[in-house]
């Protein structure tokens, strides 16, 4: 079987588990980075080079840094006295376990219908992706551009200091 896949999958799942289980919030953000890196390697294994490097750029380069900034700005690294888990944690865990069992059951039930070996590795260059983005997917690209602009302005306005007397 494929040893690298198991190693990377184990690293990704361990990173994800640590990101939601650790007590110190800064450690959670670092574990999240490991999970993102593992996912990027999984993308590269699946011959999706562009998505893999976009994952590294966007998630490790931007989202993880943003999370660390938010933690430091909100002093979230101080562990609260009454525990890090909500008082409804048992119900949340039960819902997550139920979702995983349903998803896993569905995947395992459909094993006979799944393609075992993929088609021949597609040769996808950045050129192809650029042409697709400017051709068939130009409308979603424009909508994403508008969304990103709106999100940028919205995030700045939301996080901006409130002026005195405007409350």
């Amino acid at each position, binding site marked *: 079987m494929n040893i690298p*896949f198991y190693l990377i999958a184990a690293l990704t799942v361990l990173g994800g588990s640590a990101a939601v289980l650790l007590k110190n919030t800064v450690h959670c953000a670092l574990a999240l980075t490991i999970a993102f890196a593992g996912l990027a390697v999984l993308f590269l294994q699946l011959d999706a080079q562009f998505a893999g490097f976009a994952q590294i750029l966007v998630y490790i380069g*931007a989202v993880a840094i943003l999370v660390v900034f938010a933690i430091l700005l909100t002093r979230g690294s101080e562990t609260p006295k009454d525990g890090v888990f909500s008082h409804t944690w048992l119900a949340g865990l039960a819902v997550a376990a139920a979702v995983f069992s349903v998803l896993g059951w569905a995947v395992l039930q459909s094993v006979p219908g799944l393609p075992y070996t993929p088609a021949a590795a597609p040769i996808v260059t950045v050129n192809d992706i650029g042409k697709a983005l400017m051709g068939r997917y130009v409308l979603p690209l424009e909508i994403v551009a508008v969304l990103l602009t709106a999100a940028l302005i919205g995030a700045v306005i939301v996080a901006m200091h409130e002026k005195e007397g405007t409350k």
Partner: protein
Amino acid sequence: MTGAATPLVGYLLVAALLFAIGLAGALTRRNAILVLIGIELMLNAANLNLIAFWRYGPHPEALTGMMFAIFSIAVAAAEAAVGLGLVISIHRHAKTTDLDQMNRMKG
């Protein structure tokens, strides 16, 4: 690349596990930032599914699943920016990021 030796079901199970971990984090943590981290993990698990189905599907040269994943990454980045901006704003207002203590929508 080595991906061809791994059956699709392996990727799907990893994605399901990551989704469940993210959901558990989003539902059980008290810190709002950790809830956002859980949501990001769920989005990433969905992206892994999209890429895996793109690679194992009959027409990978059509790029459909890959484009879906790329747009999903862009939307997730926007979501993270707005979400963390909201957390900072709420922290400035209520002096806490503990979701159990946030029980008012009116300031």
